[in-house]
């Protein structure tokens, strides 16, 4: 089966490592948090404030704020916009993302 990377004949440089909570994830250069998590098979990384329901990407272009995530201890980052760098620490986010 063809993959998106094959379709566009992508020849990315070597993958680097970031963490999602306590697990390590391999990330291709240029990918955002959301893209890296999708590539790792993860589709939700936030639970809502009210009902604690899981959320992930919805609009994919920074409008809906559904994909909020904590990156390097900064909560409420839009996963679909923020690019990853080697060693970044992604944390799933509960509620407001602040300790309350």
């Amino acid at each position, binding site marked *: 089966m063809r993959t998106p990377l094959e379709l566009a*004949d992508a020849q990315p*440089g070597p993958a680097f490592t970031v963490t999602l909570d306590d697990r390590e994830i391999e990330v291709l250069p240029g990918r955002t948090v959301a893209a890296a998590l999708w590539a790792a098979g993860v589709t939700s990384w936030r639970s809502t404030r009210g009902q604690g329901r899981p959320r992930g990407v919805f*609009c994919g272009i920074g409008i*809906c704020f559904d994909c909020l995530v904590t990156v390097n201890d900064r909560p409420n980052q839009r996963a679909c916009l923020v*690019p990853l760098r080697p060693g970044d620490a992604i944390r799933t986010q509960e509620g407001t993302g602040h300790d309350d």
Partner: protein
Amino acid sequence: MTDPNRSGAVPHLVVIGAGPAGLAASVAAAACGVRVTLVDSAGEAGGQFYRRPAPGLRARRPQALHHQWRTWERLKDGLDRYVRAGCVRHLTEHHVWCVERRGEPDRGFTVHALLGPEQEGAAEVRADAVLLATGGYEKVLPFPGWTLPGVVSAGGAQAMLKGALVVSGRTAVVAGTGPLLLPVATGLAAAGVEIAALVESADPKAFVRQSRALAAQPGKVAEGAGYAARLLRHRARLLARHTIVEAHGTERLEAVTVAALDASGRVRPGSERRVPCDTLAVGHGMLPHTDLADTLGCRLDGPAVHVDDEQRTDVPGVWAAGETTGIGGSALSLAEGHIAGCSAAARLRGTEPDPGAWAAAARVRARLRAFSAALDSVYAPPVHWTEQVTDDTVVCRCEEVTGGAIREAVAELGAGDPRTVKLLTRAGMGWCQGRMCGPAVAGLAGCELAPSRRPFARPVPLGILARAGEMDHQ
């Protein structure tokens, strides 16, 4: 901060948005001899339509995910040429949150932006005139289960594919209504995703009624037919006059229920069927981004910025082009951007523009506006879509306000408009400022969608807001 007004006599145009309209406008204005600053939120020019894989992915065949690639190469070459010549400055990762008039008369504008996706820093750019090419965003109407991970907007699925070469699963249903669905489904299929069904609520008979207007654009119709043919080769099921009733799953999407629509636009009882899938890409058309124009006081026509034949808004010194003036696609955006850029440059240089100089673009514009009006009358969500919004369906995704709470505000508390619904229920009060739920709240309240008045086009950190304009006083 640079002040172009003091740096010389060459007038300065700030173009906001580097999609097709903004790029065409920038190139046209630079060619006419004004200085242009192109301000855009993305790291690369192109907007949503020409979103390309991140450079780090080193895609050798980015055109595999696009059509009209030659047009993109021409635009990009034009931009690069004027950037190298110092006529255009391209500011990337600048998220504009407000354009401010610097007092009457003719003192120009200040464009306020936040820097980078983290949006911690701020920038201000002064302008003699501004050209709004802020594009549009997707409308998605709610249904039970639409907040489940794996349910994404059709444009979102496409953006992730084009920009990051990634998909969220193996089996997708593409659903809703509008000309975006076919290219989204075709793109996903080409990238190896099995398309379990393409579910379009429009009635094929409506295309026949609009056949004259549609046939006036044979290229566009052929484009659509080409997508459909490619999809059929991938063995995708095309379900016209159907709708999504519900998305199923607990922690993520596992299946959707699809049903046929009857002649009145209601779900036909007994026609429901369950389709297993891990991705649902859903959209119901596009809406223009009008916040910057609205704050400037520009007149809006319905959901879009009003412009004249030169693409001028009714606020002196403010032009608008592309989807922000009405949804019509990339080719229309290019024509409008070109006209706007020519007009703004001529008027900034104190000359009366010659419409003959953009006659070809004006003809394209007239044709494509007629074409998109015809498409608009064909592609429509099910007439009775609100009946699918059960009382426990989350409508406002940010504040988790349900259909039942909104109905209660309308029926029992007397809310007759989205603003009152918002005050009573918090629907539309969250991070996205009602962009996602606005159409649904208006529909449930029984009114037309009116652009909500947002003083700022995106959330602004308080510290930056407090410092905005300080540079003026230094």
